[in-house]
């Protein structure tokens, strides 16, 4: 009696219809996504930064966790595709989480929403919505618990590809709180899928998840060893709670051991890229001079994020449209 999950994210033709996780997606599909994002990046440079692709469609940003930054880039992406955008910030504290989620989305679906962009504190929330609430509405995961943040991963991949061409000969280091990071999980999967031969994670053991080797990464506990000759450094945000829960003694000890400074960055290749999903904690995981320095592409990442989200939205809408037609033909 085995209970195997199905390919929730893809339609019968293998096109993206939801974007929930990098896991299970092919190199071809991720490459297509990056190519499409490249085209949208060009749109962002025009006088009119808008295309009529999703005209008449309604995109709902349903955020159960507050994040103005992420919500804004999704909103801008949807608007640049000419979609109507509805923003909902739903506090989870007032009512029972589950009922809110299920009922809210059913209501929105009844209002003829065509796409949900969902951020939720529970790992698997986006899967739940795509599988149990509204499979015919494209669901885009904008971050679920510690599980996945696939659009962030793809904008990181676009950043790397635009600055380094491809992934074939790269060494990429991810530094910091891997354990609690959905960005790190999605990035490890994306880098591996796209053929990056040397993925390194650098953290103390308290911030590393069990079974990290399943991602095909090399683990370093010493930043000064791990950063040696890397092409890309992805820093992660460190939450203040980590000090209270006994995972780390203090911010300053963490900064001393794992902070990216001019001195530690010098161990990487001379032109190594510095990336960060934001918002950055200056002086906690990264030195101001590095965050604002010539090797930093942190602000570029934001720009690329809009193009990646436009690509994801238009591809998922395509997958849903095609699936709907396949269903009609089958009936």
């Amino acid at each position, binding site marked *: *009696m*085995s*209970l195997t*999950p*199905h390919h*929730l994210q893809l339609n019968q033709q293998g096109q993206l219809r939801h974007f929930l996780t990098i*896991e299970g997606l092919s190199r071809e599909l991720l490459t297509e996504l990056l190519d499409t994002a490249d085209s949208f990046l060009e749109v962002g440079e025009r006088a009119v930064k808008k295309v009529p692709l999703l005209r008449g469609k309604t995109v709902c940003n349903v955020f159960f966790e507050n994040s103005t930054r992420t919500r804004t880039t999704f909103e801008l992406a949807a608007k640049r595709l000419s979609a109507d955008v509805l923003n909902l910030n739903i506090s989870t504290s007032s009512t029972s*989480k*589950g*009922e809110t*989620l*299920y009922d809210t989305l059913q209501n929105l679906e009844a209002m003829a929403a065509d796409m949900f962009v969902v951020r*939720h504190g*529970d*790992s*698997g*929330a986006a*899967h*739940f919505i795509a*599988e*149990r609430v509204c499979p015919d509405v494209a669901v885009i995961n904008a971050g*679920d*618990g*510690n*599980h*996945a943040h696939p659009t962030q991963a793809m904008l990181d991949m676009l950043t790397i590809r635009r600055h380094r061409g491809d992934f074939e000969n790269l060494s990429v280091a991810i530094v910091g709180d891997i354990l609690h990071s*959905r960005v790190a*999980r999605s990035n490890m999967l994306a880098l591996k899928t796209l053929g990056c031969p040397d993925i390194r994670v650098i953290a103390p053991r308290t911030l590393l*998840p*069990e*079974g*990290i080797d*399943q991602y095909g990464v090399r683990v370093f506990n010493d930043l000064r060893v791990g950063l040696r000759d890397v092409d890309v450094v992805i820093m992660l945000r460190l939450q203040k709670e980590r000090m209270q829960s006994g995972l780390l003694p203090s911010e300053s000890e963490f900064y001393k051991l794992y902070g990216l400074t001019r001195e530690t960055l010098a161990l990487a290749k001379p032109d190594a890229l510095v990336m960060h999903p934001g918002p950055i904690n200056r002086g906690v995981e990264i030195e101001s001079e590095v965050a604002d320095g010539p090797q930093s592409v942190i602000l570029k990442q934001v720009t690329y994020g809009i193009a990646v989200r436009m690509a994801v939205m238009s591809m998922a809408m395509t997958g849903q449209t095609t699936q709907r037609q396949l269903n009609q033909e089958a009936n």
Partner: protein
Amino acid sequence: MRLTIEGARVIDPASQFDEITDLHIAAGHILALGAAPEGFSPNQRIDARGLIACPGLVDLNVSLREPGYSRKGSIASETRAAAAGGVTTLCCPPDSRPVLDTPAVAELILDRSQAAGNARVLPIGALTKGLEGEQLSELVALRDAGCVAFTQGLRPMGSNRILRRALEYAATFGLTIIFTPQDADLAEGGMAHEGPTASRLGLVGIPESAETVALARDLLLIEQTGVRAHFSGLTSARAMDMLADAQARGLPVTADVAAYQLLLCDEDLTGFSSQLHVMPPLRSADDRRALRQAVQSGVVQAIASHHQPHEAEAKRVPFAASAPGISSVEILLPLTMTLVADGLLEMPAALSRVTTGPAAALGLSAGQLSLGGAADITLFDPAQACEIGRNWLSRGANCPFIGKGAPVAVTHTLYGGKLVYQTH
């Protein structure tokens, strides 16, 4: 009411009886095996050729949800489900609302289960008031009201000192304590086995050490206090080793595992099905293998359903927000029989894990076929595969096996000579 079951393969693990024969029942008791007694004329016959007749199953952990959680289940609905699973004797844990920490609650459960008449319900009392781990319940009064054992379930004791005193008090009166070891601090916030799968899914992990640390403490205190102890719902390979060691040292500890733990493992969580959210969590494939071996070797004497029915809404949420538990009492026999189908156990040994094994663990007079004893008998077709969930009776449909195939189907359940379940 006189009944004859004709031509069944009668298996009684307690007496190692295994023959094709007839069973004669009168006034709720087993009258004779083989030839009918002189002058016996049944007013009902069951043609049981091709079927197996075994003692009604004994399930050590069935949440009935009454009193307090009528949306999830009731004594009537869940004992009906139990009958469909071939279970005629079941123990219900004390986590009702109010908690089963007073004789009044025990009496209410016994009264309602007698009224329902589907199965023998044996309540398990709360070790501490409100399961809060501080003040002892009135254990002797609860025993006198019908509680067969006492437990904290997964709720922690206030301190090791209080635990030790509770065990000493229970030992004074020869009471049995049931442990489900899980260190609350190590398990804090967790919802899945700490391992590669939970890491990949971003689910907070519960390390194996949450179980083994608590188990080690419990074993030491059991040894010190001499209390009669049973472990319920163990999950890890390491716990199996520790249990085997303790038994080898002569410590009279028994154990059960949840039937679903023998079939599922953490890798099944890929896809985030909240139906697979259970507590303690599904562990690794290696742990599952060790659990199956322990059931095979007899280190684990009992398989229990750990039945936890829920209303649909409790599972219609993301994995992390869902209520843990699987509704499984009505598939206890089919799930156990997969062990026979997999070649792990012979039929009589497999049946002992759901009859004599659990009965002996708590010292219950059930789980065997004896002349003059209560006619608690389960009949099933060993050659009839069935689809699980066809006629689902539990109020909780939270079962990941619904729609899957099972190797056998229960055809009749007799409780005290009364036919409480029959297919068709």
